[in-house]
């Protein structure tokens, strides 16, 4: 397992380096160059030249990239003149909130999707299966902001029990202090996730229920409940752990839309407003951080998988 972890870590590192190259390239493809994109339309030619010199943008590409990476390593993601704030600071304020939203809705999604998928697999091709499958497909086909709006209409207009807007706290603690406001954004983000996860759990469980070891378990006279819960569920859920990692990019994309819709003060909203204002330092900084978060999340999921599945955990260490 140690070797597996080292290899997986190396891969993650390579991907992060590639991501920095991608953001670096985009930075230099910006209209008018990196300086114009950073300083805005009003900057004078002298200001631009001074900025280029200060950032080393007048040097050869390789050197520029090395400097870029060195700045990143020092936590310097650039400066947003539009927010009058360093990018690192702007992201630092919002990252925890986005992570909290993503984590909460993932938790909610897993808690909902596992029983749904299991019910579907054990009642395969009967009405519970068909019903849940149809609903998942419907959830998947609905644009997430339309879904969120339906929620707002239902739960804060027709039946006003929840606020239509996310909590506006500055810190994570302030946001979490208003759980009612968190409900709609979290649930909206979770619904699509549930649709994807439950389909996955279903097919994984169906595959496992057809395995020979399940027949062996039944031959021991175990109750159906024990067969499903004790024998099949564990094996059926292992692949879902990997899905948690693989699904992160889609989850963050969803968070971008949800944050914009509910005015949730997270990274997605920051990114959205930056996009409308063409605030490129923020755009690139967020892109980089969200990608690194994705890579780390996937890495974490794989490590978790390796830790719980004995087939991976015990590989190589022969008895």
């Amino acid at each position, binding site marked *: 397992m140690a070797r597996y972890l080292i290899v997986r870590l190396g891969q993650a590192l390579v991907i992060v380096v590639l991501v920095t190259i991608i953001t670096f390239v985009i930075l230099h493809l910006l209209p008018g160059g990196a300086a114009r994109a950073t300083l805005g339309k009003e900057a004078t030619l002298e200001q631009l030249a001074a900025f280029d010199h200060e950032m080393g943008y007048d040097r050869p590409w390789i050197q520029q990239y090395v400097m870029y990476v060195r700045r990143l390593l020092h936590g310097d993601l650039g400066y947003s003149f539009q927010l009058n704030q360093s990018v690192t600071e702007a992201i630092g304020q919002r990252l925890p909130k986005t992570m909290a939203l993503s984590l909460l809705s993932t938790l909610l999604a897993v808690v909902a999707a596992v029983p749904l998928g299991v019910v579907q697999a054990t009642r395969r091709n009967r009405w519970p299966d068909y019903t849940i499958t149809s609903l998942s497909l419907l959830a*998947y086909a609905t644009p997430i902001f339309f879904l969120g709006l339906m929620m707002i209409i239902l739960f804060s207009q027709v039946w006003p029990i929840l606020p239509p807007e996310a909590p506006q706290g500055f810190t994570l603690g302030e946001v979490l202090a208003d759980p009612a406001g968190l409900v709609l954004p979290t649930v909206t983000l979770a619904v699509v996730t549930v649709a994807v996860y439950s389909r996955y759990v279903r097919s994984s469980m169906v595959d496992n229920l057809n395995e020979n070891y399940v027949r062996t378990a039944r031959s021991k006279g175990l109750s159906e409940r024990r067969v499903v819960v004790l024998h099949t569920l564990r094996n059926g859920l292992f692949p879902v752990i990997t899905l948690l990692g693989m699904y992160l990019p889609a989850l963050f994309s969803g968070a*971008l839309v949800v944050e914009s819709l509910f005015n949730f003060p997270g990274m997605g909203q920051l990114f*959205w407003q930056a996009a409308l204002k063409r605030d490129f330092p923020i755009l690139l900084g967020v892109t980089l951080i969200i990608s690194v978060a994705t890579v780390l999340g996937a890495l974490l999921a794989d490590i978790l998988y390796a830790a719980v599945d004995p087939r991976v955990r015990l590989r190589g260490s022969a008895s």
Partner: protein
Amino acid sequence: MTTPAETTGMSEGTSPGPGDADDTPVRGLWRQGVEVFCENRLALVGLAMFVLLAAVCFLGPLFYHTDQVHTDLAAVHLPPGTDGHPLGTDGVGYDQLGRLMLGGQTSIIVGLAAGILATVVGTVWGAVAGFAGGWVDAAMMRLVDAMMSIPSLFLFMLLAAIVTPSVSMLILIIGAFAWLGPARLVRGEALSLRSREYIQAMRSMGGTGGRAVRRHIIPNAIGTVIVNATFQVADAILYVAYLSFLGLGVPPPAANWGGMLSDGLADTFSGHWWLLYPPGIAIILIVLAFNFIGDGLRDAFEVRLRRR
């Protein structure tokens, strides 16, 4: 009784006997595939939904003429049914039904074009990586991994902020970054097909790699690629909607369902429901349609491999 007479007539060992293959009628794979597709009711529903929506959007304007270029501030927010506007008008006086047709054209064209573009690019990339193997493969796939770890909507937004979106630009942006999924899929497929025994059989006859690709790998991989393409189209339509919602879609007077829907959001609380639900439902229907078609196609392609 126990006369061995019947044994003489039977050239035992070489007679094929009443084999399965002899008494059923000959049917081509395409026909079998079509039959299976047609057995899947949802797939037929999906196909019908797509044909209907496309017909309304592309043929509808030939019979139902509306002005979608000039605003008419005298006729804003007319409710459905008011003179000549069966679905009412929007905030600048465009006829909502006519606008739905126009928007549908954009959504369908962008979805199809971006989906196909992504599929083509991804297929080529994945196939090259899969066949080259070794370092080329590793480098190409690490790049895919890296790009995949950037959430796509962030990437689309970033690009849309750099260039001014138009219909063709949207197709390019989405198509140029949605190919990662197909690339992975095709590479995996190429790797698994390459090790199949029928490829080995062909090689043992002296066949070349080119023949393996032409005669064996492409025909067997094409199903997976086509099925995936339908899902790509569905995703592309959703992406267009998201970009529009986030304010980076096609600018007016061009329209698309996503843009109309996000415009409608603003009207939610003023009671103009006809601006919200029709485009929303249209998007759901078209995305569902492509998902149903994809599922049906998957069955249809799989049946060819089904062994008795």
